[in-house]
């Protein structure tokens, strides 16, 4: 799993929702190695902001060596990124993390691909690469994004907090309302959602892969900034901690405590 630090070039950037941007990057090497569920570190040009911003890989175009990320403007770093346009350069490091295990699925098996809010983007590349029946459950507050693109790779079920589209409520409400079932769950989204899915999956005995989020510094496993609690003593840390950036961000729900 080679990682590269390189200077990528902006191919195009588009605003796809309120404060939500889709950015295609031309890379030399990162795209060639990228897998769904992995992420890249983006470095700000402004020198007052030192730490990289971890953003999930949303789509990969291996032939063109291009990468797509979709992000929400959450603070100064993402605000800086949102001002980039074609030709601008951005330092990136990646691909980072383990990514979703594609080999847990095969033709004939059914999967949930669950994305909540800004956890939706990694589901796009996952839905492109995963085998088997893909039920894509997307939770939004109100405004939809990426849902039409995802619909090309599977059956999309929507949940919105305000009920403006799909089931009113969260992704689990949508699963119940639609009476869905699956052999494997892949999910990314806010911690309360992941916590609920972990309980749901463990109750139903479904294998469930969760992509976690934590504040990071190095992104490569060196600083121990980004740990999550592990159920057992971890083989690397020798304490009940796993590194989200390196051992994750994707964990089996039964391995971690949320």
């Amino acid at each position, binding site marked *: 799993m080679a990682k590269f630090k390189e200077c990528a070039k902006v191919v195009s950037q588009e605003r796809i929702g309120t404060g939500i941007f889709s950015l295609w990057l031309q890379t030399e090497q990162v795209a060639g190695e990228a897998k769904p569920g992995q992420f890249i570190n983006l470095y700000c040009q402004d020198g007052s902001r*030192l730490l990289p911003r971890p953003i999930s890989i949303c789509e990969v175009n291996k032939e063109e060596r291009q990468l797509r990320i979709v992000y929400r403007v959450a603070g100064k770093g993402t605000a800086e990124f949102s001002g980039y346009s074609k030709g601008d350069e951005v330092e990136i490091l990646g691909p980072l993390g383990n990514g979703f295990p594609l080999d847990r699925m095969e033709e004939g098996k059914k999967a949930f691909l669950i994305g909540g809010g800004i956890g939706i983007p990694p589901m796009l590349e996952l839905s492109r690469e995963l085998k088997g029946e893909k039920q894509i459950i997307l939770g939004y507050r109100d405004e939809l994004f990426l849902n039409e693109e995802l619909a090309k790779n599977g059956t999309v079920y929507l949940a919105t907090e305000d009920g403006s589209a799909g089931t009113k409520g969260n992704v689990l409400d949508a699963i119940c309302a639609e009476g869905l079932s699956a052999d494997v769950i892949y999910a990314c989204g806010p911690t309360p959602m992941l916590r609920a899915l972990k309980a749901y999956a463990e109750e139903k005995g479904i294998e469930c892969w969760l992509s976690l989020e934590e504040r990071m*510094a190095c992104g490569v496993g*060196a600083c121990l900034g*980004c740990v999550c609690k592990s159920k057992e003593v971890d083989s690397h*840390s020798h*304490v009940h*901690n796993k590194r989200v950036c*390196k051992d994750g961000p994707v964990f089996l729900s039964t391995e971690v405590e949320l």
Partner: protein
Amino acid sequence: MTDMRVNIAGVELKNPVMTASGTFGSGEEYSEFVDLNRLGAVVTKGVANVPWPGNATPRVAETYGGMMNAIGLQNPGIDVFCKRDIPFLQKYDTKIIVNVCGHAPEEYLAVVERLAEEKIDMMEINISCPNVNAGFLAFGQDPKHVEELTAEIKKIAKQPVIMKLTPNVTDIAEIARAAEAGGADAVSLINTLTGMKIDVNRRTFALANKTGGVSGPAVHPIAVRMVYQVANAVKIPVIGMGGVTTAEDALEFILAGATGVAVGTANFVNPTATIDVIDGIQAYMEKYGVKDIHELIGAVK
């Protein structure tokens, strides 16, 4: 040709550039980006006598021109460290400096004793840890505790001992003299400056631990001042760190009197920072016709 070799307490480093403890693991993660053979030394993450789980998350936060961390010295304990991390580093042609932490003198001593048999080049004692036997203050904030701890460690240490000083003190020169009086072979500084960040929208601390240690370019001028003060107060070698991102930053420490320099937070910004600093020092020496790095050490008075 330029000669970048330096000698710290009898150990010859091929160049003065090392990693700052806690920012480079035991080298494995960054070995994908950096040829470890090129480094003067690898300084490992602090290790204690038993595994430490560290603090709750969030453990890191960005600050203006720097960062703050409260990892809480998570480490797998000295036994795992000796079995796994030291053998890994021994594969490389670089010096191994093991950073040691503890909550009480006994804990430090247990690690130092355990290291006696190991093929490491030096140890660096992190005295920014709170002394559980003496209230809230860190060992390193009281010259008496520094001298005593240094002396106890020196009694049993089989390798040269670097005492790593905290900048959260009134008079860093006094602390450095205490380490020297206790028998330290070298001092390194600075550890992080205690800081705090508040998330005004969520009205909570940015770090679960409330306070954290500030590092990175923002603290560099404070570190240079302290290195200058210490280099002019003690005879033992000084290793400078705090915000080194470029060769110029490292050269400031060297000109202020440091024999070695460590690169910490910059690794997170640029994984090849250590190599870039080494190459940059070399380029500087060539540009100005400096044949031996010793011409630069302490050259600005």
